[in-house]
């Protein structure tokens, strides 16, 4: 019997575990998941949750409810991978051995590296606790300057800060305090989004909605005493509320095991999803250094390739299935509207969709049902 060990039970780890469980027999393949958290979060909802209070349970599910019962879940963290011994050290003191290892540990949100907290009115919406604080601050907000800025690139869901700006504008209008509020969108590039055609549309909408765009702002630090944010280029802006994308890095276990780049993202073959220069180790999702966005959509579109390659190896064949970089992305431009983008390694992003369609905006919320019932369970 072969043993497949999966590190990380976010969307990537759980959906791959479930797919493997469906495609193999218990007597042939044992599947073990290492994951410290007991709930899976539908992260796209955090963006909307920042503006409206409802129970977190509306968009989280216990791991036990979404994991195929054939998978053995060990609720702990991996601390070190030793590929020469095919072993993983765990924080509960045990060591687990594998025939095949799948790394799906996601990106670490390095909140401490911001140098300020919600007590300084510096916020983010990338983790539930932080989003809850932002929600409270926004509901008490009565006007002033709100700045939005990424810190490091890459970060999860590239359009998320743009989407936050659009939703914030909507929210402040509904509350009747938009005219008392300046919104500034600070961004590392010359345009407000990496893809020029999308940036053009976004900047047109920013102009219409009175959102000021500041180009070439590469976050350097926060001066919390003087309520200023400072860039590498030497610019400074004052804020009443600062909403950042927190710094993203790979997890400690990757850095400790020498499997990643400077930031700790796993060196991954963009086609086969094998960890570069290693045998029997694969990586998927936000933990990788793939030249595509860090998104659930990428995990979804690449998971089939990863599973097929592992199954081939188990049968003694070579891992020659290839992921072509295919993904899609919705950019929310208000509570009810969005644009659809389509990418692959072979062509730059293409933009579709009528901006003022109701369907796309609603799609993101309705998608939650499909996320928990179909995608996570590995049915697609």
């Amino acid at each position, binding site marked *: 019997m072969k043993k497949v060990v999966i590190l990380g039970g976010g969307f990537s780890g759980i959906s791959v575990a479930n797919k493997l469980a469906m495609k193999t027999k218990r007597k042939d393949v044992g599947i073990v998941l290492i994951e410290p958290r007991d709930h899976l979060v539908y992260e796209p909802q955090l963006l909307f949750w920042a503006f409206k209070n409802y129970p977190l349970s509306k968009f989280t599910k216990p791991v036990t409810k979404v994991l195929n019962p054939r998978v053995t879940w060990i609720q702990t963290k991996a601390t070190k991978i030793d590929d020469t011994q095919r072993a993983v050290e765990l924080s509960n003191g045990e060591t687990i051995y594998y025939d095949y290892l799948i790394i799906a540990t996601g990106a670490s949100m390095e909140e401490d590296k911001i140098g300020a907290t919600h007590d300084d009115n510096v916020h983010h919406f990338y983790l539930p606790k932080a989003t809850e604080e932002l929600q409270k601050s926004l509901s008490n907000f009565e006007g002033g300057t709100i700045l939005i800025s990424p810190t490091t*690139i890459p970060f999860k869901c590239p359009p998320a800060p743009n989407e936050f700006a659009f939703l914030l504008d909507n929210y402040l209008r509904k509350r009747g305090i938009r005219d008392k509020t300046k919104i500034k969108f600070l961004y590392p590039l010359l345009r407000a989004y990496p893809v020029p055609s999308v940036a053009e549309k976004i900047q047109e909408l920013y102009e219409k909605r009175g959102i000021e765009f500041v180009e*070439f702002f590469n976050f350097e630090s926060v001066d919390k005493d003087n309520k200023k944010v400072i860039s590498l280029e030497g610019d400074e802006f004052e804020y009443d509320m600062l909403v950042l994308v927190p710094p993203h890095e790979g997890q400690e276990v990757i850095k400790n095991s020498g499997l990643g780049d400077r930031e700790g993202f796993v060196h991954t073959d963009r086609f086969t999803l094998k960890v570069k220069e290693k045998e029997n180790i694969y990586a998927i999702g936000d933990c990788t250094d793939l*030249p595509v966005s860090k998104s659930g959509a990428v995990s979804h579109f690449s998971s089939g390739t990863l599973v097929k390659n592992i199954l081939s190896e188990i049968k003694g064949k070579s891992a020659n299935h290839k992921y072509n970089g295919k993904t899609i992305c919705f950019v929310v431009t208000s509570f009810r509207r969005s644009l659809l983008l389509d990418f692959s390694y072979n062509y730059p992003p293409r933009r579709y969709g009528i901006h003022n369609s109701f369907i796309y905006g609603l799609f993101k919320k309705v998608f939650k049902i499909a996320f928990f019932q179909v995608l996570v369970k590995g049915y697609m």
Partner: protein
Amino acid sequence: MCLNRNEVKVMSDYDIAIEIDARGSFCPGPMMELIKAIRQAEVGEYLSLLSSDEGTRNDVPAWINKAKHELLEIINEDGHDRYIVKKLH
């Protein structure tokens, strides 16, 4: 001043402290790699960025100008450009 030459420059002309190979990476990859490297470099050091992305020709000179570093040359090599940058502060 920024020269744009259609010939391969002899690399020993510059004492390159950091070379960034961003060939094959789409915009904004090459520029973000350069920004990361500038953060790590010492003042006065030279960096060399290799990029095959067309958009880099627009973005990198504009960013260098904004961030007040120096773009010494853009050298057209086989299938990519080489940007020579000096960190000034």
